[in-house]
Every structure is written in C-alpha cells, then in structure tokens.
C-alpha cells in the first residue's frame, strides 16, 4: 500500500514532504537534467530581493568538517527579472513554487510580497529574516522578535499568499522568535537557516571568505537544526519545514519525528544532485517498513513517546 505523503504547509498543498532549501537549488533548471522536478513536493527558489544584487566578493565558499560555509550575499537578478525570466520555466511543472524573499527594510518585504502576489505561478512566500551574509536586513530582523513580527505583519497586509517565515539558529531563543511571528500571522515556519561561522587561512593569515564570515550548512549542523525543530514544535502550532544537514531519508525522518511537516534539502544537492528524489523514496520505504499509512502519524512523533 502506498503511504499517504501529502502535506499542507500553511495552505500550500505539497504532494509529498520533500522540498528544496533556498539558495541551493537555483531556480529549478539547474537540477532538471538529473531529476524529474515534478517529483518534488515543492520548490523553494533562490533568495530574491527587490533590486538585483551582485553578491559578495570571492571566495564565497569553504568546506569544513562535514559541512561548508557560504557567503554568497544574496546574489540575484531582482524580483522583476525573476518573475519575467525564471518563473515561466517553473510553470511547465506541476509543483508549488515558493519564493524566498529578503529585504533591507521592512518596506522592501511589503513591496516584494506585493509584486509576487500579482505574479502567476507563485504558491507561497518564504521570508528570509535570517541570512547571516548580508549587512543590512537579514539577520537583524531575525534576531529580534518584535522586528520579525513587524516584517510578517507588513507582508501579510500585502499579500494573500501563504507566508512561511524562515528562522535563524543564531539567537538565544528560537522559540521566542517563533511565537512572535506566529502571533503576527505567519502561516508556517522554515528552520533553520545557516549558523554563523568562519574559517581562517593559516598560510595567508586571513579569513578565507571574501565576506569574512559565512553561514554553516551541511551534516555538521543537523543536531542543531533538529533541536530547533523540536523546540519550536513544542512552542507553536504552525507547520514546520525542517532543514539543516539532511542528506538521507533517515535524516529527513529525524526532522519529521522532531516535528517537521516537510523537509528541505540543501547542501546535499551539491553532493548528490538526485538527493531530493532519493530522500523521498527513502521516506516512502520507511513508512512501508514501519507500517505508517500517513506521514502525519510521524510528524512530531518523538514528542509522544
């Protein structure tokens, strides 16, 4: 019997719980040669801003033990270009498109939401208030519950699209943030964004990354991400998209048991371009093996033992 895998993330209907982590999957076409995009539960595209951004100086990436640091700096062609040139490609597929948005100011978020609200083919917004790699905005909204709530309120008043708020682990209490954005009207939560880190080149005696600091992702951060999902699941009732170091179906299940209704695959795509699909197949297999008829049975199950 095929287990029921569909999930509803704050109004976004996904045929299965596997999606992509923003910034690790481009806009879709990059991975189309290797997997059938239609098999994804949803796609979350690269972080989009109001105006185009060049991004940070190089090097933008450095490998670390079981992980990597990135400091891309939100390079992207801007929301208008995105709507005109990237979105049409995705309309060829039968999958919800979630647009990850970042602003320098609260107003930016409102304007972005407005533009995407009127674009066709957008299923929801993922609000990045947690990017550690840009100077203005980014993490500054994500580390203060009140600012975060303000961003959410402005977005909610600019669009009827489902709003997923992406939280940062670089805070004293991720649950305070979660509670605050939930009260402000968020429809779902994504966690986690990368953890602030850095690496130093001991020969050159200077930071490796052009931006000095970057965001840690990959298997190394998984225990932190699972903990965040666990804490937030306890604190708020919103559906959670869990991410951070997922490379296998077992990892994905760990997030689901901790409380995630869906999972996003990030860094793993770089290692294995078919990671998303293989993880989906592994989840199906786990359900069959353990007699789970509906993935819902697993969501947060580790809290109930």
């Amino acid at each position, binding site marked *: 019997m095929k287990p029921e895998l569909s999930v509803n993330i704050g109004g976004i209907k996904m045929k299965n719980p596997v999606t992509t982590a923003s910034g*690790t999957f481009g806009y879709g*076409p990059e991975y189309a040669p290797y997997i059938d995009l239609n098999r994804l539960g949803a796609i979350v595209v*690269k972080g989009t801003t109001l105006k185009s951004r060049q991004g940070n100086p190089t090097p933008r990436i450095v490998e670390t033990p079981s992980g990597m640091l990135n400091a891309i700096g939100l390079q992207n062609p801007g929301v208008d*270009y995105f709507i005109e040139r990237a979105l049409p490609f995705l309309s060829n597929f039968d999958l919800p498109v979630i647009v990850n948005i970042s602003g320098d100011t609260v107003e930016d978020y409102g304007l972005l939401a407005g533009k995407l609200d009127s674009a066709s083919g957008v299923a929801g917004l993922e609000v990045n208030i947690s990017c550690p790699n840009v100077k203005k905005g980014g993490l500054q909204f994500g580390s203060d519950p009140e600012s975060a709530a303000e961003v959410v309120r402005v977005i909610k008043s600019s669009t009827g699209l489902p709003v997923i708020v992406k939280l940062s682990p670089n805070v004293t209490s991720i649950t305070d943030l979660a509670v605050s954005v939930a009260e402000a009207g968020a429809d779902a939560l994504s966690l986690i964004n990368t953890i602030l880190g850095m690496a130093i080149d001991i020969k050159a005696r200077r930071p490796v990354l052009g931006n000095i600091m970057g965001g840690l992702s990959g298997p190394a951060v998984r225990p932190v991400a699972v903990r965040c999902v666990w804490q937030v699941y306890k604190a708020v009732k919103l559906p959670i998209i869990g991410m951070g170091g997922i490379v296998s179906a077992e990892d994905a299940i760990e997030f689901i048991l901790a409380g995630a209704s869906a999972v996003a695959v990030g860094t793993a795509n*770089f290692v*294995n*371009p078919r990671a998303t699909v293989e993880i989906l197949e592994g989840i199906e297999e786990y359900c069959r093996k353990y007699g789970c008829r509906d993935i819902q049975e697993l969501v947060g199950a580790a809290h109930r033992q």
Partner: protein
Amino acid sequence: MGSIGTSVKGRVELSFLIDALVIKQERVGPGLYFMELQAPEIARKAVPGQFVHMQVSRELEPLLRRPFSIYNADQDKGRLELLYQVVGKGTEILSKAAPGQNLSVLGPLGRGFVLPEKGQKVMVVGGGIGIAPLVFLLKELAAGGISAEVYLGARTKTCLPSLSQVGSMGFQPKVASDDGTIGYHGQITALLERDMADTAIAFLKPDMAYACGPKPMLKSLARLLLAKHIPFQVSLEEHMGCGVGACLSCACKIKANNQEGYLYRHVCVNGPVFPGEEVVWDEA
C-alpha cells in the same frame, strides 16, 4: 545575470550523473596522477575545456565534490581521462581509488573552448596542472588539422608527463621549468615574452591564444596578450559547491557596462573558459 534559461537548455541534454568505474590509476609524476574512467555518456558529449565534478569517495567527509578538467575523452571506448595533482584531502583520497572501484561523476559541465577556424594561427599556453584541459584541446586541434605554437611550463621536468603525448600529436612544445631541469629556466610567460620580443624567431601573432594555469601565470600572460591585442581564451578556477549553477559560489568578475564595471559570472556554467579580454584581471 542572463544565465537563467540560457545556460540551461544545453545542460538538460548534455550532463549526466553516473557511477563511473575506475579503469586505471597511475602516478605519473610527483603527486601527479592519471586516471581513466569508464563514463560513456560523458565521454561522448565532452568538448575540450569542460570539466567533471567528482565525488572522491562514498563517505560524506570530505563533503563536497571536486572539479577536474577533462584531460581526454575517448568516445569510442567511452572513457574519460583526468590528470590531477594531489594538493589536499580530496585529491589525496582520489589518488587511492583503485581500478574496479566506482566513483560518482557529474559531467560534462561548463562551457569549453571555442575552437578556431581552419587556417587560423593558434597559440596554446599551459602552466602546471593547467596543462590538463589543453591536452584535450590539442588533440582536437590535431584532429582538425590545425597547427599551434605550444608553450608548456612546470615546476620541474617530472611534472610534465604530457610532453611526449603532445609531441606525438605533432606539436613541438616549447618548454620552461622553474628549476631549469627541462627547457627554459624560468617561467613559461618569461619564455613567451622573450620569444615575442626576439625578432630572430619571427614570432607570428596568433589569431587566438588558449591558456590555463595558475592565476599569477594567467595574469602575466593577460598583460602580454592584451598589449599585443591578441584574443585569448582562459580556463579559470574557483571554489565550487554545486558545479551546475545553483549555488553561485564560483563567481568571477567579468567586465560589464554597469556602475561597478563588472558582473559576477560563474565558472561552472558561464565558464570555466572565458574570453581573456573580458576577465577583470586585477581582481583575479
């Protein structure tokens, strides 16, 4: 930023993720290895200048794939050849892969060299491990009946295992080594500069130069070629995440008519080969 869509179509048809059997693994110089892989789909589509993104083992540590230029592709046998230098953890592990083992290979990736027209005068300049993609290029040039002035430099004689191969293709490479153990004693760009200045040699201005090598070498070369208005194509390196244009890690500055004077382009999809004139060399 016009990369969305444009660079995509090609790759949809031309790139593969396969488990490739290691056919041969051979030490050919100090820390230098030659590897042959059974990878028919990739070998069939590869053009000189393209690269593959390789998982050095099945373990997740080191995590990321490693990019390597295609040193040669044998369509008939369905084989790919790589020439690589052990410089760190990943290449160290790769050098221990034994024939019979499978490695995950993603490719062919990127844009290769734009080949010259028949009859054009061509120059090829390679330094160190940068020689790797140029050997595949030379093979195609030879196959197309195009002759080329070839300049190859390396640290020392034993770092030039490709020399006889290049010779057997019919080229007479000029050679330089940092330690003087073979050819000119000094940098390959110094030899080239000397030749360009030496009226006795009657240096003929090429229609196109092709180059790959360490950044400092490419910079010196760019200075020489730009001064003489010689068009050239260079293969660049940048640290890579995905290799397919998704992560935007492998940025390099390409001249543009905007406020900043440059745009970031990406080595994995817009390159690794770029027109030399368009690269922002001060930054590189």
